[in-house]
C-alpha cells in the first residue's frame, strides 16, 4: 500500500511585496524593511507628483472660500437630499432656493472648506492631520462616511465651474486624488 506523505511547504526566499526571488535584507539599527529595489518603504505615505502638489496648492490659493464652500454644501444638500439629516437645526432647507440662501449653510460650507486647508498644508501626512476630525465625525457627529464622497463630488463640480477651461483632465485627476485621500483619512477612525 502506497503511503502518501504531506510534503512540507518549503518557503522560498521570495520577496513578499514584489514577488521576486531576492534575499530580504533587514537594515540594521532602524530595522526598516527594505523592498527589493532597496528603497525604504513607508506604507503610509501617499506619493504626490510635483504637478499634483503644485496643482492643489494653486487651486486653494486662488479659491474664494466664502463662495465655493457654501455653493458646494448647498449643492450637496440639494442633489443628495438625504444629507440634510445632519442639519436638522439649520432651519429652512425646504427647497433648493431656501438651501442656497440659508446663512447657516453658507457659514458651514465655508468652515468645511477651511478644514481642507489643513490637508493642503500637510499633504505628506493627511492621515495623521485628520485623525482628530475623523474621530469627531464618527463619535460625535455620527456622519456616514459615504457622505464625504458625495460632498467631494459636489466640490469638484463647483471648482470645475469656477476654473472653467483651466480645470483640465489632469487638474481634475489631481484634485480628485487629493479629495480621495482626505475622504479616506476622515473615514479612518470609524469603528
Amino acid at each position, binding site marked *: 500500500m502506497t503511503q502518501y506523505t504531506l510534503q512540507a511547504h518549503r518557503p522560498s526566499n521570495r520577496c513578499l511585496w514584489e514577488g521576486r526571488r531576492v534575499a530580504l535584507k533587514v537594515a540594521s539599527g532602524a530595522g526598516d524593511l527594505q523592498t527589493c529595489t532597496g528603497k525604504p518603504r513607508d506604507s503610509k505615505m501617499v506619493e504626490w507628483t510635483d504637478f499634483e502638489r503644485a496643482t492643489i496648492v494653486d487651486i486653494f490659493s486662488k479659491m474664494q472660500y466664502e463662495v465655493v464652500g457654501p455653493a458646494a454644501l448647498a*449643492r450637496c444638500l*440639494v442633489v443628495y437630499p438625504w444629507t440634510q439629516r445632519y442639519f436638522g437645526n439649520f432651519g429652512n432647507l425646504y427647497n433648493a432656493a431656501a438651501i442656497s440662501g440659508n446663512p447657516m449653510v453658507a457659514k458651514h460650507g465655508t468652515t468645511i472648506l477651511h478644514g481642507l486647508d489643513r490637508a493642503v498644508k500637510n499633504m505628506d501626512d493627511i492621515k495623521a492631520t485628520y485623525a482628530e476630525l475623523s474621530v469627531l465625525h464618527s463619535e460625535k457627529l455620527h456622519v456616514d462616511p459615504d457622505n464625504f464622497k458625495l460632498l467631494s463630488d459636489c466640490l469638484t463640480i463647483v471648482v*470645475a465651474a469656477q476654473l472653467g477651461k483651466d480645470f483640465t483632465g489632469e487638474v481634475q485627476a489631481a484634485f480628485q486624488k487629493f479629495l480621495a485621500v482626505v475622504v479616506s483619512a476622515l473615514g479612518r477612525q470609524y469603528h
Partner: protein
Amino acid sequence: MSLSAKDKDTVKVFWAKVADKVEEVGSDALSRMLAVYPQTKTYFSHWKDLSPGSAPVNKHGKTVMLGVGQAVACIDDLNAGLLTLSELHAFTLRVDPANFKILSHCLLVVLSIKFPNDFTPEVHVSLDKFLAALSRALSEKYR
C-alpha cells in the same frame, strides 16, 4: 428615486442647450474619464490614440452623447427605448456597470464647466437622477 415630471422637463430643456455641442461635450467627458480614471483605458486597448482630442476619442465621445440624447427622447420609458443599447453593452461590449457612474460624473463636470449658469443645483439633481436611471436601463440585460 424615479424621475418626476419635473425632472423629465428639466432634463429635456437643459439637453436642448447641449444638443449642438454634442461632440465637444462627449469628447471632453471621455477624455476626462480616461485621464482621471485610468482603469477605464482597458476598454480601449484597440485605439491607437487615447489622448484628449484625438480622432477616436472625438468620434466615440459623439457616439456616446448621441446615445444619451436617444435616452432623453425616450425618457418616459428608458428600458424599452434603450433595449438595443443594453443588449449591446451586455453581450458585446461587456462594460462593467460601475463605469457608467464614472462617465456620468465626468459628464456632469463637463456640463458644469460649459454651462456654469444653467447647471444649477436643481438641474444637477435632475440630471444626476436621469443619468442613474439611464445607467440602470443600460444594465438591464446584463444578467
